């Protein structure tokens, strides 16, 4: 089977069934290193550390009852490698487990916490939980129904091509999301229309309690891309260098040739699904411990130390610095006021239709009445 039928040849299939990696779980070099200067190498590490520290803080704030819910990203920090090659004008549709993505795009810890607490500075104005985004960073807030954003990203990429822009779109989603109609339709449209979109599937082996094997019998997610006529590859998603390198190639290809690309980021969800989850019901601690040794930070730190870009104590210091930094921010954001009571009447439409005007009037009266009845106004 070496003949080529619409891009299906041995090599393209191999790419979807193998696992592309550059550094192994000890940090040893086992593949082609990209040609990166020390500061870029360091930046990747710094983003991963920031993501991890922020994750810890969000978990802490959740336990303190300040944050309603959080989806931990422990173990998936190498996603920062996927977004780093993007330019500001490129668009990103992140998933809900993508703290590192938000940071790389320019959203800082304060904005993320404002969002998590939906205080007066929440850019999304208290619309929904556990989602992040901001137009300033060309990052569209994630819809909670899993996978909805996939066809949106394809539409944006089509519009970029139609308007002759030099931009590309990247969209993240989990292994569970690949079962949805949105995935099927989105990838099919991208394949048919040949648009500059990069699909990044964070295959962390679990969709809440459903393991990959029960989600699909596809040999890999990357293999699925081929049936849509999309160049696809499976990457060791705990190897930030591999993620960076493949994403750079994909972004360049998308930008130059206006072609779609699918990256399967093979990783593992080390934490619970969200803070509302109890993974002990469906997977063993032993499995988690076993997978811990593949986690992305340690191996990349070893690599950077080997490369002379970082020392052990610098690494520890970096962690501590961000820990304290967020501690300060947490204090600050916890003191901010809430959103106005009538916030949810706005942003339904550009202008309030008459029924919403009437209802807003009734609403304001009801607030007065609550006070006069001695009821607490939330």
């Amino acid at each position, binding site marked *: 089977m070496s003949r080529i039928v619409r891009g299906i040849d041995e090599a393209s299939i191999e790419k979807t069934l193998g696992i592309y990696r550059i550094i192994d779980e000890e940090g040893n070099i086992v593949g082609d290193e990209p040609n990166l200067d020390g500061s870029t190498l360091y930046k990747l590490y710094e983003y991963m550390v920031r993501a991890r520290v922020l994750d810890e803080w969000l978990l802490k704030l959740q336990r303190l009852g300040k944050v309603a819910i959080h989806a931990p990203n422990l173990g998936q920090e190498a996603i920062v490698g996927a977004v780093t090659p993007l330019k500001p004008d490129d*668009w990103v549709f992140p998933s809900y487990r993508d703290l590192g993505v938000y940071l790389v795009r320019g959203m800082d810890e304060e904005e993320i916490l404002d969002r998590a607490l939906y205080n007066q500075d*929440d*850019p*999304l*104005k*208290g*619309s*929904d939980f556990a*989602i992040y*985004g*901001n*137009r300033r960073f060309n990052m*569209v*807030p994630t*819809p*909670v*129904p899993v996978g*909805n954003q*996939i*066809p*949106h*990203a*394809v*539409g*944006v*990429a*089509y*519009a*970029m091509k*139609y*308007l002759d822009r030099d931009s590309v779109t990247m969209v993240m989603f989990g292994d569970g999301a690949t079962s949805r*109609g*949105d995935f*099927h*339709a*989105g990838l*099919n*449209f991208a394949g*048919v*229309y040949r648009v500059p979109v990069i699909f990044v599937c964070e295959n962390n082996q679990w969709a809440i309690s459903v393991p990959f094997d029960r989600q699909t019998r596809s040999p890999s997610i990357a293999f699925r891309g081929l049936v849509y006529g999309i160049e696809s590859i499976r990457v060791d998603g705990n190897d930030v260098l591999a993620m960076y390198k493949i994403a750079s190639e994909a972004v360049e290809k998308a930008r130059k040739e206006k072609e779609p690309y699918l990256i399967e980021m093979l990783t593992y969800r080390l934490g619970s699904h969200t803070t509302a989850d109890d993974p002990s019901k469906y997977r063993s601690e032993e499995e988690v411990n076993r997978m811990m040794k593949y986690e992305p930070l340690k191996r990349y730190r070893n690599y950077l130390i080997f490369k002379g870009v970082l020392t052990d104590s610098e690494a520890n210091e970096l962690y501590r610095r961000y820990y304290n930094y967020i501690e300060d921010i947490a204090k600050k954001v916890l003191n901010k006021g809430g959103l106005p009571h009538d916030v*949810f009447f*706005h*942003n*339904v*439409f*550009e202008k309030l*239709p*008459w*029924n919403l005007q009437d209802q807003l009037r009734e609403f304001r009266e009801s607030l007065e009445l609550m006070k006069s009845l001695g009821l607490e106004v939330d």
Partner: protein
Amino acid sequence: MPQINMVEALNMALREEMERDDRVVVLGEDIGRRGGVFLVTDGLIDLFGEERVIDTPLTELGIIGFSIGLALYGLRPVAEIQFIDFVYEAFDQIYSNMARIRFRSGGMYNVPLVLRSPCCGGIKGGMHHSQSPESLFIHTTGLYVMMPSGPYDAKGLLKTAIRLNDPVIFLEPKSIYRVIKEEVPEDDYTIELGKGKIVREGGDITLVTWGAMVHISKQAADIVKEKLGVEVEIIDLRTLYPYDKDLIIDSLEKTGRMLIVHEAPKTLGLGSELSAYIVEEHVDLLYGPILRVTGYDTPFPLAHEKLYMPNIARIYNAISKLMEY
């Protein structure tokens, strides 16, 4: 001015808007070379090319999800769903995204997307080529909903829809696509969102309706006038959300009697909201009950569709009852 039908008027609106603004693109199943199964997009591909007149794969979810992306980036897509009966695969995209992205993003993003689709019965289309699901969209919150009853309004409303910065569900009663002809100017005119129209004046009864039922209602009103001497005032809502409450109230101030006629099933058809709204806010205007003549609470049948849909006898009957008050 020549008389044209609704298909031609819609085609004219699309062409003019595409000429005016190159962010306007149209897409859907068979809308390119085929020109749409009802020919609403006929000829557009020759004028604007296949990048702006986009034939899609067979998935309504894909059409709407993809169109939302187009709209997010600043285009103004007009997506055709071949029959509104096939829209449901896209319902998650409509309900959770098209209608919610402005809200979800705290107002940072908006979705200027028009979903247009043939709707309603009367062509012997059976269960899945005949339905009137406007209630589902109206209850969604976050969508404007329109339904024209003739060529002139169709053109003006579609232009309005395309220029709005929020999503619009634009429903086209297919049974009158080619039946009614009107003078439609080649000029650029729009019809204001949320404004109904009195299509027949009368002092005894306020009959609120829309779409193809405007015409049945007119026929019934003529018979009622002849046989009972009752003068029916007919309001064509045109925009179903937000509907023109002022026009209804003004008319009720004259008549005190209200009848609603629609094709959708009765239970939770828009008639229920119109009735509930008037009773809640303007009960003092009423002499008696508010009646509804609607489709029955069954799936839309192939056999005897004319009996399933509101007809002259049922409207006549309701009017006679109302005149007892």
